[in-house]
């Protein structure tokens, strides 16, 4: 009898944990500041993204195909755009997007949303790519 009760309690607890886990995950998804990711091909030394990709928000993560680093593109005032290379300027590690900008997990460098250093050891701001606006599209020049 005791064994049955123990089994029942155990399975009930497992069910509750699974339900709580699922609920938590969906809640986390709902409250997270998810940034849209756009995978794009590289054509010559440029990538092109449609301007309507910014309809859902001013920030976009662009992932050029075959690259190991993302580009953060932000729509700014007066219809200008800023494209930051998400490679840490300290030791070339990939950066992760956080609510205040970008962070390197390797040595702890932090950059604000404009790519300026907030915390070392990085000493230089993030590299910016030149952008030009075409008809309904933004062109990012990958080489100077």
């Amino acid at each position: 009898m005791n064994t049955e009760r123990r089994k029942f309690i155990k399975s009930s607890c497992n069910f509750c944990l699974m339900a709580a886990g699922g609920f938590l995950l969906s809640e986390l998804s709902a409250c997270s500041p998810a940034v849209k990711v756009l995978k794009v091909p590289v054509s010559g030394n440029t990538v092109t993204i449609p301007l309507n990709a910014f309809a859902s928000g001013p920030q976009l993560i662009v992932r050029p195909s075959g690259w190991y680093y993302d580009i953060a593109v932000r729509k700014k005032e007066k219809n200008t755009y800023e494209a930051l290379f998400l490679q840490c300027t300290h030791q070339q590690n990939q950066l992760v997007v956080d609510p205040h900008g970008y962070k390197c997990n390797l040595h702890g460098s932090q950059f604000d949303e404009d790519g300026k250093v907030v915390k070392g050891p990085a000493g230089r701001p993030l590299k910016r790519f030149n952008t030009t606006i075409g008809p309904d599209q933004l062109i990012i020049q990958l080489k100077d």
Partner: protein
Amino acid sequence: MTDSGFFCTMKYQLASVFFIFQVFTYIQTEAQAFRTGAQQLILSNEDSLHAGTNSQKTVISGYGSAFYQRNFNQEQSTLTLERAVLFVGHQFSQKISFFSELEIENAKVEGGTSNGAEISMEQAFLKFNLNPKQYLVAGLFTPRIGILNENHLPVNFNGVERPLVEQLIIPATWRELGVGFYGSMDQLPLNYSVAVLNGLNAQNFEHGNGIAGGRAEGNLATANNLAITAAVQYAWKDFKFQISGYNGGTIGLSPRGSDSLGLNSGALGTPIYLGEADLQFNRDGFSAKALGVYISYPDAGKINNRFGKNIANGMYGAYAELAYDWLHKKNAQAQFISFGRLEMLDMNASIPGKGDALYDGTEKQTHLVLGFGYLPLPNVVIKADVRLLHTGPQNPDLVINPPPNQLPYRQSNQFLNIGIGYSF
């Protein structure tokens, strides 16, 4: 001067200018040729601004710290170059890189005597980028356990000394050999990591030093036993949460050797478990940190019995820190941060029964640290703080053959710390 004389002079002058130009060009070319391949790959600040997506580059950087400490109970002051660390990294391609940290602690190792000094590799690993969000590392690296282990630069923590909980309970800088997988998600601000490492060596555990003595740190680690560690980080608004865990075997002996001692060997034999959770908050110049960690070592009694140790089977540590940057509102590059941190830890929170261990009250400690850090730039810091320490009473059974001039143990002590730190 005749026309022919004028042209002759002009010819000589032009020839001289051409000769000087040729010599200058030659010297420049030779100077370039005398740079080794590695030297030509090292970035100057100017180069790196234009480096863009060049696939090959070598980077040299580093960090260091020095401090003065006054121990008021002992009436003793110390001054040391605590750390000088040199980073060398090389990017072979966009996909494969190498990272290393070579550390010299306390400045000088001479004639085989260390006096607390140490030369060691803190990290040396290859990194394989799988895509922009995931990568593998292989070699000697610091796994993601706690806040400090992964990011331990002096400009990135408050206080001259690293938090005591992350020295004595989480033995940072804790590096081992192994393979790690790191990643972050697109849909959520969530980072994760999992790693397989060499295990700890129970024969080297020491009373009063937590599990630090069991680390191999890349030096002939026993690989019959292994460890698994994993961490998850989640960023939400101004908060960042992390949980991490570690489960590792502590017996690296062969099955025959461990059987003869009655200890379980194998990958995760005679295991140690570590669980940690922390949160960080940052907004408008205010920052807060809180961390809790617990270590469980169920077979500590057997280890004490077989190897003549006095190790606990439960240890805990926790701290909370509040800080404010008084220059935040000026939007300046400089920061002046005042902070307070309360730390509590017990390296023998539970001990094996049946006379297999002796309780040591001095391992139950409370530290209150109050101080400031001034960063004129993000990579340079000047720090000062006072640390108030209170411990439990000393166990007289653990005091063996005390020197005749030994002072009675005092449960409270104060330390004054002044230090500098840099990273680049």
